[in-house]
């Protein structure tokens, strides 16, 4: 057998018998069509998500490859491992040799040191701020300011009196309320303010300890920070952009706040609530139609104090005039006006929102910290003690395309020096200082063997000390002012690249020149690290990112299982219908065999027939899949504002694309599956004896 003519015969036989057995063809064809469609659409979507997610992860934090301690107890999970508690990823004690070794790999564009930590910053209550200003005014003997702040304090106290009068009606804790009312009465008395002039310290202390707690609580804000080489980070992560303020100057300590954190954690609560309603309304939700928005709107007027307490008396006067003009029907003073102003609904929202930012926002502290401010980060060091570090905020940043993703914006950036300090690593200066202290106090390093001798035997270790009559002073001989000054200098002192590189990092991001060559580069980096005898492991961005990175693998697995099941069902159905078709064609096959067709001819004929059907329906299904993906690629698939989706889509919309790869995969898979399922019926067909042709009787 052979030749074009035979092929033509196969085509004619194949197509005609497909046409003749229409029901079978339609059933099997639809299955094959659907199967290919699913493979093409599924893999195209997954491939698109994978590459967009790769962009999100690599551009925002991970780079293409992550390096970390080879002896780490937990695997690195940059976006969280999904388990409670913090992971112990070990540390890279000295980053410089790692950087040197990895940078030497040809495809490596940059190696950026990193370390993630969690700190708190506390935001003061409005009243605290008033009292703080008052303390400053008293210290500066600024009488005009003292008067203004006194007036504001009395205004706040008046509000609190009303509030506590209301509370008294519903609360059973009468004792506490009575005490609060007594304290408030004292603040409102002229006598108190007279006292302030005489003994300011005591009066302010009374305000701090008795009045401040009466107002609502201050907040403890948790801040996740990524210590890094800021110069390298801002240069090498190309989606990074400053949206407010400036980058931290090279060689200086400083912090960059993520736009997401800035807007969602640091912004004034009232502004945040208004923003939230606005964002939802932009998406088409109404306050009346959404339970959450209704709650937010209902709570808004109750937060008026967050505004009124922050106002200077002068500003308060101006605002009162403006609000009265806006809301002439409202009776009462500024608190009532602000409350009325904050009562928003769908009809007045847009106007109120604009008015808030125009009239109120300029007079209040819109953000707890803004570029230019110094904030105090408190974190537990590796050793377990609480460390506070002051750091200047230079700017606010975001990753373009990931503006709405909380995950991408979870990290705030801080310089490597500050990070190491919060982590509890000693700087050379600190080490010198400690040695100095040890020398001064006379601490000796004693080894374990001689510890007992040193403790109980030997010469007099305890020296008789004659205290003077002033008694014991723990601060004697300590230059506190000098200490503070020295710390300040240290914090302000510029540092160079060597200082950034020579020191501890927890992990490091490697950015590649050609990300396509990731596997190859990963191997080269591992080799380089081994050659340099560094106990550092390298892993790709997907596994380094933790749960998020694994997400796509899980989805892919689910898709493949679904495809596998559909294929299995298709296989069984194709198998059955081909067996039925074979039975129907026994006479035909017997005749072919009798007149000289070999078994192989029968086998090929059956496989060819299915192959043609698979190619046609698979091709159509694949084409339909590509058409759908192309249409979606133009319209975009909305992430629905869901954070994880925005992150996976690397933006608010996913624009998937499908190519020849997915089509080939789909069609090949379906052809292989259908041929496999035809094999058995075809083998049955080859066993049909030519003698059956002779036994045909009508």
């Amino acid at each position, binding site marked *: *057998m052979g030749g074009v003519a035979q092929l033509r015969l196969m085509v*004619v036989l194949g197509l005609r018998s497909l046409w003749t057995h229409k029901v079978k063809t339609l059933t099997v064809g639809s299955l094959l069509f659907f199967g290919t469609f699913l493979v093409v659409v599924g893999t195209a979507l997954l491939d698109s998500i994978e590459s967009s997610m790769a962009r999100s992860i690599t551009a925002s934090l991970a780079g293409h490859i992550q390096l970390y301690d080879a002896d780490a107890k937990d695997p690195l999970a940059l976006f969280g491992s999904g388990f409670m508690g913090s992971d112990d990823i070990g540390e890279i004690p000295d980053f410089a040799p790692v950087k040197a070794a990895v940078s030497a790999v040809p495809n490596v564009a940059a190696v950026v040191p990193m370390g993630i930590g969690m700190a708190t910053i506390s935001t003061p209550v409005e009243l605290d701020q008033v009292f703080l200003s008052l303390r400053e005014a008293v210290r500066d003997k600024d009488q005009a300011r003292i008067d203004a702040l006194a007036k504001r304090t009395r205004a706040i106290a008046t509000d609190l009196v009303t509030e506590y009068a209301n509370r008294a009606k519903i609360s059973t804790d009468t004792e506490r309320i009575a005490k609060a009312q007594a304290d408030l009465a004292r603040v409102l008395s002229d006598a108190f303010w007279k006292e302030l002039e005489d003994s300011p310290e005591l009066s302010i202390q009374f305000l701090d300890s008795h009045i401040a707690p009466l107002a609502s609580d201050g907040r403890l804000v948790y801040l996740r920070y990524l210590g890094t080489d800021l110069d390298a980070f801002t240069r090498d992560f190309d989606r990074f952009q400053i949206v407010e303020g400036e980058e931290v100057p090279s060689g200086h300590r400083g912090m960059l706040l993520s736009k997401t954190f800035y807007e969602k954690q640091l912004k004034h609560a009232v502004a945040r609530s208004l923003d939230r309603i606005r964002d939802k309304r932009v998406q088409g939700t109404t306050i009346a139609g959404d339970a959450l928005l209704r709650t937010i709107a209902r709570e808004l007027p109750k937060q008026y104090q967050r505004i009124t307490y922050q106002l200077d008396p002068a500003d308060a006067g101006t605002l009162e005039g403006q609000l009265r003009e806006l809301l002439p029907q409202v009776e009462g003073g500024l608190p009532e006006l602000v409350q009325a102003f904050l009562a928003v609904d769908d009809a007045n929202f847009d106007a109120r929102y604009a008015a808030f930012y125009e009239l109120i926002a300029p007079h209040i502290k819109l953000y707890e910290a803004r570029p230019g401010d110094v904030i105090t980060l408190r974190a537990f060091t590796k050793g377990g003690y609480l460390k506070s570090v002051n750091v200047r905020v230079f700017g606010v940043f975001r990753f373009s395309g990931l503006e709405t993703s909380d995950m991408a914006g979870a990290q705030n950036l801080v310089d490597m020096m500050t990070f190491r300090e919060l982590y509890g690593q000693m700087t050379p200066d600190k080490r010198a200082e400690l040695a100095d202290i040890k020398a001064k106090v006379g601490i000796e390093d004693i080894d374990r063997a001689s510890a007992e001798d040193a403790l109980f035997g030997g010469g007099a270790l305890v020296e008789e000390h004659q205290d003077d009559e002033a008694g014991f002073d723990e601060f004697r001989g300590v230059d506190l002012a000098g200490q503070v000054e020295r710390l300040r200098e240290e914090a302000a002192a510029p540092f160079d690249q060597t200082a950034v590189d020579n020191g501890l990092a927890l992990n490091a991001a490697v950015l590649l020149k050609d990300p396509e060559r990731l596997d190859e580069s990963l191997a080269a980096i591992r080799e380089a690290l081994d050659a340099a005898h560094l106990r550092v492991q390298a892993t790709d961005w997907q596994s380094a990112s933790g749960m998020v990175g694994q997400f796509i693998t899980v989805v892919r697995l689910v898709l493949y299982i679904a495809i596998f099941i559909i294929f299995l069902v298709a296989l069984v159905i194709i198998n059955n219908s081909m067996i039925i078709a074979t039975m129907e064609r026994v006479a*035909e096959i017997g005749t072919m065999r*009798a*007149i000289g067709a*070999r*078994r192989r001819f029968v086998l090929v004929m059956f496989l060819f027939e299915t192959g043609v059907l698979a190619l046609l329906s698979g091709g159509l299904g694949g084409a339909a899949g590509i058409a759908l993906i192309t249409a979606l690629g133009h319209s975009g698939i909305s992430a629905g504002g869901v954070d994880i989706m925005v992150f996976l889509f690397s933006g608010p919309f996913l624009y998937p694309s499908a190519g020849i790869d997915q089509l080939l995969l789909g069609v090949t898979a379906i052809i292989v599956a259908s041929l496999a399922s035809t094999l058995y019926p075809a083998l049955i067909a080859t066993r049909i004896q030519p003698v059956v042709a*002779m036994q045909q009787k009508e």
Partner: protein
Amino acid sequence: MPAVVEVRGVEKDYPLGKLTVRALRGVDLTIDAGEFVSIAGPSGSGKTTLLNLIGCVDVPTQGSVSVDGQATSSLDDNGLTNLRLHKLGFIFQTFNLIGVLDVFQNVEFPLLLQGGMDKAARRARVEAIVDAVGLTPQLRQRPNELSGGQRQRVAIARALVTGPRIVLADEPTANLDSQTGANIIDLMKELNAKDGTTFIFSTHDAEVMRHANRVIRLADGLIVDDGRGAPRAEVPAPASPA
């Protein structure tokens, strides 16, 4: 004339449940090239079994069959298939055309299986043979568009297209009316006369038998008359139907 078929001491048993049906019980037969032979006998006499053995679609339980000098028992499936393809042509009682192919393609089919002929030569050969059976106007029609007689003509054309040594026909007229049947036998005889192709056909129709040059009579698995002289065997009492 040389012998194209030699059957020697052939027995053929079929298992039927626990019983064994002895379809042929020792048959010796020689058919020479160019003969126009009818195998006759009542139902169950072993006509079809004998034809199947000569047609290489079955092998004997005992004895030997050789076709054009080739012993069939020495051949495997592919060997038998090749023998059928190159030396034999088949005409079936139920025509057995391939329904999805038209007249031309049905007749062309064995040539394609054989291979080795170029398109033009193949076309000429098919058209000539279709013309010989008088179906040129129906060349592009499918079997279901043809009458029974026309279908059997297509089958004859298909059987003859490869130029076989022997054409086997199992009750070729059984599904045709007597006039059409007679025409078919006439056609076969005409082709036999023209090309010298050996025709062996089974029938139980006395009218059809009349056209044969030689009639081999079977009864209960034995040849009772090989058409060349005295009967070979007396017919014993029937054992069981085949």
